[in-house]
Structure formats: structure tokens, C-alpha cells
């Protein structure tokens, strides 16, 4: 496999390295630089998080609300697509299920919190049967089966008119607090998704998922319960997507099956963010989601309806040029520069 060859290529440099004394100072300087970089990144992140909450511009708030939403979606997708290497194009199913659960709860008089909780639950629970079916397949067949699963859920929403209102969709009162509130909620959701991702990463589940990604047979032989681990990941991911669906529903105050179960507008951006930024890494998906949202905005202005084309091109270029995503590229660069051989690859 190509990946393994790359790994081997990085090895001699890491082993030979400079003599110990230069390595010491070099490493110390490197650690300092990376600490400074980390602090700068944190400050920038904090500024970006607060700015749209205090800015008077509704457009800026809207843009950031959208960004946090997709950053959270990519983070959620990464649990399954990145850590476990299960490339799903069906995450719209969980997003849409959450959106519908929330919309139905809210129009039937349930409170904001109850509706949101239901949305998360809908996504997490729907993930179980979907995963149980799709995880029987591997590779391209798995991808196709997730696509089909999302389509089945969309058709159900479209045709169960008595419950969902069918193609007419559901209209909701606008969110009190407007875009600024949506932005704050989005930030909270992103925080939750990132926290989940970080916890899973360090937990036994994270190890198991990574092992499954690298070699499923060997992982099973090493005692990893393959189906159970993947179902856990998909259910956590689906729950977060369900919450994201509820937020989307609150932000746009209108949903229909075509928009919340969309391949081009939901499933692909969720995957694309993680792929572009660095699948499997913790900070990759939000970074990638930023790129995706900006490109989507720019293309909406420049190309109108053809922005799907931009997604397609971006996806192809990413996979061809930076298969590990930008964070993966940075990590590889760091390793090649004489960093620790075992340091975090995505």
C-alpha cells in the first residue's frame, strides 16, 4: 500500500537525525516555536469565535453560524470516516433525521431543549440500523450502501406525508435572537463535537477504530470487536449530526426532504471538510470545513446553482494532491524535519 511506503520513507531520517547535542537545542527550539504557534492559533480561534457574537453584521454572524455547523458536521463525520476509515456519504440521513425530529417536536409544542435532545437521539438511533446493514460491506460497496441508506431515509420523509408534510416541508417560527444566537449555538455544538472527537481519540474506542482503519483483519485478530466499535462510532457521529440538523432547522426555520437529506448539500460537505483538512486529525475537520464554507460562499456568488461543481472539483483535487489533507501534510512535514518518529499522524 502506498501509505506504508510513505511511512517507510520517513524512517531513515528519523533514525539518523542530527547528533544528540544539536538535536537537543533543535528540539527545544522546535517545541518553543510550536508552542508559540499553538498559542497564536488559540488566540486567533478565540477572536474568531467571539467576533461574530459581538459584531453588528448579520451576514458575518450567518457566515460563522454556517461555519460552526459544518465544522461540527465534519468533526462528526471524522469519527467514522477519519478514525475508523469508513468513508460514509450517507451522513445526510442522520442530519435530516435530527432536523425532522427537532422540527416535529417544536411544531408540536415541545420545548427547545427537548426538541434538540430528540434530534440528537434520532441521529444516534438511526445510525444503528444503518450501520448494522452498511458495515457488512467494505470499500466502495460501503460508500454506495451509505448513499443508498440516506436515499431510503429521504424517500421515507418525502412519502410519509401524514407525519413529515412530504415535499411541502415544515415551516418554523424564526429563531429568537436571530443569526447571532445561531452562531452561539453553532459554536457550542462545535465545542461538543470537538470534545467528543478528542475523548474518542484518546479512549480505547479511538485505538480500536484506528486499528480497524489500518487493517481490519489484523484488528479483529487482535481482539477488536469490529462491528461493535464501528457502530459506537457511527452512533456518536449520527447523534452529533442529529444535533447539527436541529441547529440547521432553527437557523433556516424551514426544512424539506430535498434540503436536509441532500447528498450535495449535506453528505458531501461533511466528508469534504474532513478530507480537505486532514481526516483522522483532531483539528483537520474544522480547518477543512472553513475552506469548504468559504468556497461554497464564493461559488454561490460566482456560479449560482453550479456550486456543486466546485465541491466536485475540490474533492477530486484534494484526493489527488493532498490525500491526507492539510493537517496530515503538516504533520508529515514536521516528521520529515526530524520530529519524533511516533508523533501524531492523523
Amino acid at each position, binding site marked *: 500500500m502506498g*501509505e*506504508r511506503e510513505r*511511512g*517507510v520513507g*520517513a*524512517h531513515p531520517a*528519523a*533514525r539518523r537525525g542530527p547528533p544528540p547535542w544539536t538535536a537537543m537545542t533543535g528540539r527545544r527550539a522546535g517545541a518553543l516555536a510550536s508552542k508559540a504557534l499553538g498559542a497564536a492559533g488559540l488566540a486567533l480561534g478565540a477572536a474568531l469565535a467571539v467576533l461574530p457574537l459581538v459584531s453588528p453584521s448579520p451576514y458575518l454572524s450567518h457566515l460563522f453560524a454556517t461555519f460552526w455547523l459544518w465544522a461540527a458536521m465534519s468533526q462528526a463525520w471524522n469519527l467514522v470516516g477519519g478514525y475508523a476509515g469508513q468513508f460514509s456519504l450517507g451522513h445526510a440521513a442522520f442530519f435530516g433525521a435530527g432536523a425532522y425530529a427537532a422540527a416535529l417536536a417544536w411544531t408540536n409544542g415541545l420545548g427547545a431543549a427537548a426538541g434538540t435532545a430528540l434530534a440528537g437521539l434520532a441521529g444516534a438511533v438511526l445510525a444503528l440500523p444503518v450501520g448494522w446493514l452498511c458495515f457488512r460491506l467494505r470499500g466502495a460497496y460501503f460508500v454506495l450502501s451509505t448513499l443508498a441508506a440516506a436515499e431510503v431515509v429521504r424517500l421515507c420523509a418525502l412519502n410519509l406525508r401524514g407525519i413529515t408534510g412530504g415535499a411541502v416541508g415544515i415551516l418554523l417560527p424564526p429563531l429568537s435572537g436571530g443569526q447571532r444566537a445561531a452562531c452561539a449555538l453553532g459554536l457550542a455544538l462545535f465545542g461538543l463535537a470537538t470534545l467528543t472527537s478528542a475523548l474518542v481519540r484518546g479512549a*480505547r474506542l479511538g*485505538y*480500536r477504530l*484506528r*486499528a480497524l482503519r*489500518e*487493517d481490519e*483483519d*489484523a*484488528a*479483529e*485478530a*487482535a*481482539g*477488536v*470487536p*469490529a*462491528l461493535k466499535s464501528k457502530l459506537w462510532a457511527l452512533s456518536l457521529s449520527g447523534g452529533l449530526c442529529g444535533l447539527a440538523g436541529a441547529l440547521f432547522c432553527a437557523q433556516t426555520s424551514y426544512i424539506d426532504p430535498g434540503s436536509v437529506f441532500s447528498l450535495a448539500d449535506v453528505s458531501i460537505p461533511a466528508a469534504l471538510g474532513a478530507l480537505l483538512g486532514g481526516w483522522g486529525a483532531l483539528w483537520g475537520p474544522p480547518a477543512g470545513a472553513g475552506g469548504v464554507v468559504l468556497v461554497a460562499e464564493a461559488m454561490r456568488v460566482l456560479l449560482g446553482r453550479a456550486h456543486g461543481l466546485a465541491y466536485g472539483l475540490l474533492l477530486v483535487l484534494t484526493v489527488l494532491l493532498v490525500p491526507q489533507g492539510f493537517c496530515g501534510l503538516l504533520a508529515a512535514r514536521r516528521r520529515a524535519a526530524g520530529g*519524533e*518518529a*511516533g508523533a501524531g*499522524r492523523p
Partner: protein
Amino acid sequence: MLEVELLRAGYGPVEVVCGVSLRVGTGETVALVGSNGAGKSTLLRAVAGLVPLIGGTISFEGQRLDGLPPHRRLEMGLGYVPEGHPVFPFMTVQENLELGAMAPRARAHRRRNLDRVMELFPVLGRRRRALAGTLSGGEQRMLAIARGLVGEPRLLLLDEPSFGLAPLVLARIYRCLAEVGPSGVGLLLAEQHVARALSLARRGYVLSQGRVVLEGGSEELLGHPQVRRAYLGL
């Protein structure tokens, strides 16, 4: 400890193992030899639970294994090391081992198990923080075996531990395997390297085209004219 009765297994309509019966006693080292394509790997994969059975039964410590997923078999003490380089290349050596040591039956003795395999394979201790993909072929094989051992198996199925290794490395791995046997861990060793495997094991089975064609003590098999002609080139 392990009893395989008239096992039949394969891939889709192709039956690769056609009615094999074999036995491994507690703490015993048994060789399963035969040429490429004889069905050794498929047999081990079936015992490990990675290939569905077409017929026959497998029992381990008196319990039937039918339909149990691989990780449940590991919990019962049936470990498996696949052929090739079955390590996780982008995880460190330590992480690879930790993953094996997480098996529920072994979790309580994690530290001790890890120390023990690092002692058995000192090179793994030295390269603990390296990515597994950067190890040499022989080191990766040692890592795979070590990962199998830290799960505290009562019987370890080893698929082709010698495959593609230089004679010197191979000798080292076999020396380590010889140390594993006396510690009470049973080994079922699938090998093309007939002389090696039979010199380590007390007993062996010769597999050909999915069937056991010969079985017996190692000395006896090594001296058997058919084995000498077909596998040892004598």
C-alpha cells in the same frame, strides 16, 4: 484444548479446506505444514473466526466456537497472528502492543504482559515510539507475534511466521517461539518451512489440497519418505 472435527471452509463456492480434523493439547506446540495453497491459512482463519465454516465443528477447551466473532474467541484465550505484516503501520509500536493488551482477559496484567514481550523481543522495547510501518520486515513480524502474546492467549495460531524473512531473522524468531512454548502457551504453527516448524513442534500435520495427508511425531514426519521428497527436497 483445541479440537477441530471434519472442518470444511472456503471462500464463496470454493472449498479450500475439505474435512480436516486435528487436535492441539494444552501448552502443546503443533506444526501444520504443507505447500502453498494447501489450505493452512484458511484453516487458521476459520479457527480464528475470520472465515465462515461450510461444515464441521471447532471446539476450544470443550466449548463449541460456531459463529462466535473473532474477538470473543480471543477472550476465550484463542489468539491469532495473521500472515504477512499484520501490524498497524501508522500506530507506534507501543500503541500496537497496547491494542493487543486491551483484550479483556489480559487487561488486568497489562503492564506485566507488555514488559514480558519487550523482554522477549528487546528490539521492540528499543523502538517503542517508532511507527510500526517504519520497522523492518522481521521486526514487524516480531511485533505481530508480541501483540498476539500480550492478549494472554492459551493457544496462539501463527500463520507463516517465517514467510519472506532472511534466515538469520527467522532463526531469531524461532528462538523466541521456543521460549513461548514452555510458558504454557500452546502454538499451532502453519508453515511452508517444514524443517523449521517440525524442529520446534513435537507433532505435526501435513496438509495437501485441503486434506490431512500425514500426521505424527515430528521425528517421524521428518523421516517420512514422502515428506522428505515433497518438502525437504531430499
